[in-house]
C-alpha cells in the first residue's frame, strides 16, 4: 500500500468519526440532538443486520423481533426491576441475544426467501405477545411510566436527561459495538462468513460447517440489533409493539441497501438518509413513506451497491 492509498482508505473513517463526535456542536443549534441519536442507533441496528445480510449473505426480515426484545428488555427493567440504565441495556441485550440463539437452530437450514419468511413469522409471534400482554407490556399503548436513569460511574454521575449526554452514551455504545463487529469481520471467523456469502458450496467443500456458522453470525447480528433496541427504548423513554413489527425489519433492510450492503459503514449512511428524509418529509406530507420508497427504488436502480458502494467504486478507479 502506498501512503496515498492508506490515506484514501482511512480518511473517510476519520472524517466520519469527526462528524459523529462533533455532531451535537453543530446540530444542537437546530435542537436536533435526538435526531442524531436516532441516526446512530438505527445505524447500529442496520449495521448489525448487515453483519448477516451483507457479510454472510443471509437475508433476515425479522430483525425487529430482537430489536424489540432489546427495547422491551430495557424498558421493563427500568419499569419493574431496578432504576439502572446499565442494567437495562444488559438485560435488553441479553434477552434479544438469547432468543436469537434459541430460534437460530430452527431456521438455519432454510435459504433465501424461505429463511426471510420464517424470520418474519417468528418476529410476528413476539409482536403479538407484546400487543396482547396488556398488563405487563402496556399492549398497543406501549410501555410507559419509566425514564432512563443517571449513570453512576463512582467518580462521577452522568445525567442522561440531557440529550447531548445521552447522544454521547449512544456514541460510546456504537463505537464499542462497531469495533467488535469490525474485528470479527477481519478475523478468520469473519472470512469464513464471507466465504459462505460468496459461495456456499465452495465453503462447504473447504470443510466449513456452513449451518453452524450461519447460526453464529445470526446470533451475533441479532445480539447487536438488540443492543440498538435497548438504546432506542432509552432514547424515547418508551417502547411499543411497532418496534417488533416486521415493517421495522424492513426499515433496517432498506437502510442497509440504501447505504451499501457490501461496505461496513454503508448502513449507517443509509440510516442517516432514511431518518433525515423521514423527519423532513413526514412534517410535510403524510405520504412520506412512498417518497422514501421512491428514493430507495432510484438508489437500487442506479447505484445497486448503495451510496457508499458507489462512492467506493469512484474513488477506487
Amino acid at each position, binding site marked *: 500500500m502506498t501512503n496515498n492509498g492508506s490515506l484514501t482508505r482511512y480518511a473517510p473513517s476519520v472524517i466520519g468519526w469527526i462528524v459523529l463526535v462533533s455532531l451535537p456542536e453543530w446540530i444542537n443549534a437546530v435542537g436536533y440532538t435526538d435526531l442524531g441519536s436516532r441516526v446512530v442507533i438505527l445505524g447500529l441496528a442496520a449495521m448489525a443486520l448487515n453483519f448477516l445480510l451483507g457479510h454472510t449473505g443471509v437475508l433476515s426480515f425479522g430483525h425487529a423481533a430482537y430489536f424489540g426484545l432489546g427495547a422491551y428488555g430495557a424498558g421493563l427493567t427500568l419499569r419493574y426491576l431496578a432504576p439502572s440504565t446499565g442494567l437495562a441495556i444488559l438485560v435488553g441485550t441479553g434477552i434479544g441475544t438469547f432468543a436469537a440463539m434459541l430460534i437460530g437452530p430452527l431456521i438455519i437450514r432454510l435459504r433465501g426467501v424461505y429463511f426471510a419468511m420464517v424470520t418474519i413469522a417468528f418476529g410476528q409471534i413476539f409482536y403479538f405477545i407484546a400487543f396482547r400482554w396488556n398488563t405487563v407490556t402496556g399492549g398497543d399503548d406501549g410501555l410507559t411510566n419509566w425514564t432512563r436513569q443517571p449513570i453512576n460511574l463512582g467518580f462521577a454521575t452522568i445525567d442522561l436527561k440531557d440529550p447531548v449526554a445521552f447522544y454521547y452514551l449512544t456514541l460510546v455504545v456504537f463505537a464499542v459495538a462497531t469495533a467488535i463487529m469490525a*474485528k*470479527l469481520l477481519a*478475523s*478468520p*471467523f469473519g*472470512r*469464513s462468513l*464471507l*466465504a459462505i456469502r*460468496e*459461495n456456499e*458450496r*465452495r465453503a*462447504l*467443500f*473447504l*470443510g*466449513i*460447517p*456452513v449451518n453452524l*456458522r450461519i447460526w453464529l453470525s445470526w446470533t451475533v447480528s441479532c445480539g447487536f440489533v438488540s443492543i440498538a433496541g435497548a438504546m432506542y427504548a432509552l432514547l424515547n423513554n418508551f417502547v411499543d409493539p411497532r418496534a417488533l413489527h416486521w415493517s421495522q425489519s424492513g426499515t433496517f433492510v432498506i437502510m442497509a441497501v440504501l447505504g451499501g450492503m*457490501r461496505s461496513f459503514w454503508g448502513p449507517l449512511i443509509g440510516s442517516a438518509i432514511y431518518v433525515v428524509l423521514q423527519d423532513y418529509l413526514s412534517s410535510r406530507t403524510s405520504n412520506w413513506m412512498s417518497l422514501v420508497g421512491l428514493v430507495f427504488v432510484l438508489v437500487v436502480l442506479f447505484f445497486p451497491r448503495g451510496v457508499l458502494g458507489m462512492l467506493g467504486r469512484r474513488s477506487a478507479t
Partner: protein
Amino acid sequence: MTLLKVENLTKRFGSLIAVADVSMVVEPGEIRAVIGPNGAGKTTFFNMISGFLTPSTGRILFDGKDISRVPASQRVKIGMARTFQITEVFPELTVRDNLQIAVEASAGYGLSVILNEEAREEVHADVSELLELSGLTDRADRLVGELSHGDQRTAEIMMALALKPRLLLLDEPTAGMGDQETFDIAKLIRKLHRQQNLSIVLIEHDMRIVFNLADRIMVLAEGRMLAEGTPKDIAANEAVQKAYLGTAG
C-alpha cells in the same frame, strides 16, 4: 494400502439410474481418469464420493474406513478435496483471500477471532507458497471473478490443494478452455501430483490430457462401468471405441 475403495455404488434419481453398481480402487499416488459421454453419471459418481450426494446403495471406503454416511465437510477433514465442473470460487474476493480462507479452514482456524503471530505467519507463508506454485502471485490482489476462466480454474484447484488433501477430485478441470489454458492446467496438475504426493481422480473430456496424465482409466456409459484399465488397454478396447472414443472424440 488402498486409499479409496468404492464398492458397488448406485444412485437413483426417481426412476433414473444415474450410476449403476460401479466399483473402483484408487491407490496412493495414482492418477485415475474417469471418462464417458455426457450424462454418463461421472459427476454423480464424484458427488457421492465427496459427500454431496448419499448413495442409494453401495459403500465408500477411505483409508479402509466406511465413510458412506460421513458429511461432506467432515470428508474434507480426513483428506478429500474436490473441484467442480462449473468453477466454484469466491468471485468478489481477491485470489489471496480465496486461498487464505482455504488455508484457515484447513488449519481449523474458522472460529478464531484473534490469531497469534506464529499462526498468522504460517497462514501467510502457506498462501504465498500456493500463489507461487500456481503462478498467480502477480494476480494475488485481483478479484477472482475478474480473472480469465483458466486462472479461476487454477485458483479453485489451489483452494482444494490448500486443504492438504490425500485425494484430489477434479471434475473436468479443462472444461471450456482453449488449447493453451488446457495445456497449462495439465502441467499444473502434473506438477502438483509430483510435489505433493497426491492421489488424483479426474473427470476429463480432453483425450490428450487423459492419456497424458492418467495411470489408469475408467470408462462410464449410461451409469455403468464399460471398461477399466491402463491407457493402452482403453485405447485398444473395442467397446470403448464404439461407445465413446469414436463418437465423442
